């Protein structure tokens, strides 16, 4: 707590596009009063002041190199509550696509003979390195959901992240289902909370928010196959944001890709 009684919060970024932090800034457009209820003590993207005493740490981005781990552990030590902000931190996200190729090959492709100048390993979600107390999913996060999460944190409640699929929100918006338009969609197994924004704008849900607790994976794959997708295409749609999870599952022998 600050002297003024407002909880101190800090933002940190690792490997990511910083779009989620921008969304936080954007949330001020509709909720400028956010600044009246929390004390932001660190937010490198938007401010120079740095406070090392914070209660809640929002971490954006994946961990993609060993040298990030120490910094993460420091944050964990300081913060009472650590929240993964956005798909990169929550799932590994788009960064984990890298893991579909051998690491050496990836480095060589981009940096040629200078490949070993750059430290990197397969991207992983934050909770693969330190304990995380909550996750705000999405690529990027949803503005309103972020505000709702801040309120929940202020009240000591669980983060209000739904555990039902995107289809629920999509139906309530009365979108014509993409499958009826000859497209495909991961909405039936993806965790809602984005207000089905992708299907609403005519594009397939790509699963950026991760999956619901009990997705019917087999049935989903059959639906995709029936819609005309090849095995490779199904793999592709499943790996856009969740390569890390798919590979973890494979390691546990639960699934073949």
């Amino acid at each position, binding site marked *: 707590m600050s002297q003024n009684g407002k909880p101190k919060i800090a933002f940190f970024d690792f490997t990511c596009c910083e779009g989620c932090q921008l969304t936080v800034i954007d949330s001020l457009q509709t909720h400028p009063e956010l600044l009246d209820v929390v004390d932001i003590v660190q937010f490198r993207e938007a401010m120079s002041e740095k406070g090392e005493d914070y209660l809640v740490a929002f971490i954006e981005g994946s961990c993609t190199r060993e040298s990030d781990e120490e910094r993460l552990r420091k944050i964990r030590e300081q913060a009472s509550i650590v929240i993964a902000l956005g798909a990169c931190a929550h799932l590994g996200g788009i960064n984990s696509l890298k893991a579909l190729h051998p690491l050496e090959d990836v480095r060589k492709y981009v940096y040629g003979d200078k490949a070993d100048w750059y430290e990197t390993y397969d991207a992983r979600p934050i909770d693969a390195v330190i304990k995380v107390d909550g996750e705000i999913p999405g690529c990027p996060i949803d503005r309103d959901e972020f505000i709702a999460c801040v309120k929940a944190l202020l*009240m*000591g409640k*669980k983060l209000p992240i739904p555990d039902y699929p995107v289809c629920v929100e999509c139906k309530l918006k009365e979108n014509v289902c993409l499958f009826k338009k000859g497209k495909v969609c991961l909405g039936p197994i993806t965790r809602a909370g984005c207000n089905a924004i992708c299907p609403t704008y005519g594009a397939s849900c790509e699963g950026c928010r991760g999956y619901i607790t009990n997705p019917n994976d087999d049935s989903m794959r059959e639906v995709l196959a029936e819609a005309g997708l090849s095995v490779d295409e199904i793999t592709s749609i499943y790996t856009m944001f969740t390569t890390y999870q798919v590979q973890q599952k494979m390691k546990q022998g639960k699934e073949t890709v």
Partner: protein
Amino acid sequence: MIANKSYVTLADYGSVDNQLFMPVPTRIKKVVSLNDLNKLFTLELPGGMSLDHRPGQFVEVSIFGVGEAPISITSSPSRSNSQFELCVRKVGDLTSAFHNMRAGDIVGIRGPFGRGFPIEKFRGKDILFAPGGLGLPPLRSLINQVLDERAHFGRVIILYGARNPDELLFKDELKEWGDRKDVELLLTVDKGEENWKGHVGVITTLFKEISIYPRNTIAVTVGPPVMYRFVLMEFLAKGITEGNIYLSLERRMKCGIGKCGHCQINNVYSCQSGPVFPYSEIKGLEEAL
């Protein structure tokens, strides 16, 4: 009468109960911690309003901004009524927020809801109570009413089990009941502790310690879902008829008035028809136990 494009409020329709979803602000008078997870709250309705509940009924407790949850009334109507007691176990958002409240704070109350125990049918009978764990608070209401009208009932037997000695609730009252000559109280814990000198074992192990006259016995149990099957078997084995066995079925609830669908057990809304049921009524329900 076609009103113009004007806005209408509930007040324009006098006959509709527009208070149905609106909780009554109710002050917390006293908070007592029973153990790590359970607290006993004494509440008082405003303006001397009385709750008029039956044992076995519940209220919906609101904490604004957190939500609403069903909580059984643990005090007995035979004691004070504008004041009543709730025993709350801290398990989630609302119950945690409740635990953070102090005497003087306000919560919202709707209810009482549900059917409660048909105590008039119990008069003249022996009563066998078998609460498990957090099943005691809802049953305490009935037990105390029975004790308050002790002369109208036959034997009163209480078999109470909890996971460990710390989880036995209302220890003072247990002692009081245990000291009474007209109450047969048997306690057990699944796992003992150093200082525990009593019975160890699940609640069903207590049944062999008692003998009853089944035709004149009402059996009542409240506890976690897993317990019911076994306790029921004991009741039936003792020869108690299905219509004389009562239990309370906890379900998720969102309205308390038989609409939201969450508490439905097959075709029965447990918030309306229950949560207290005679076993004879639910034994045909696939989803009940």
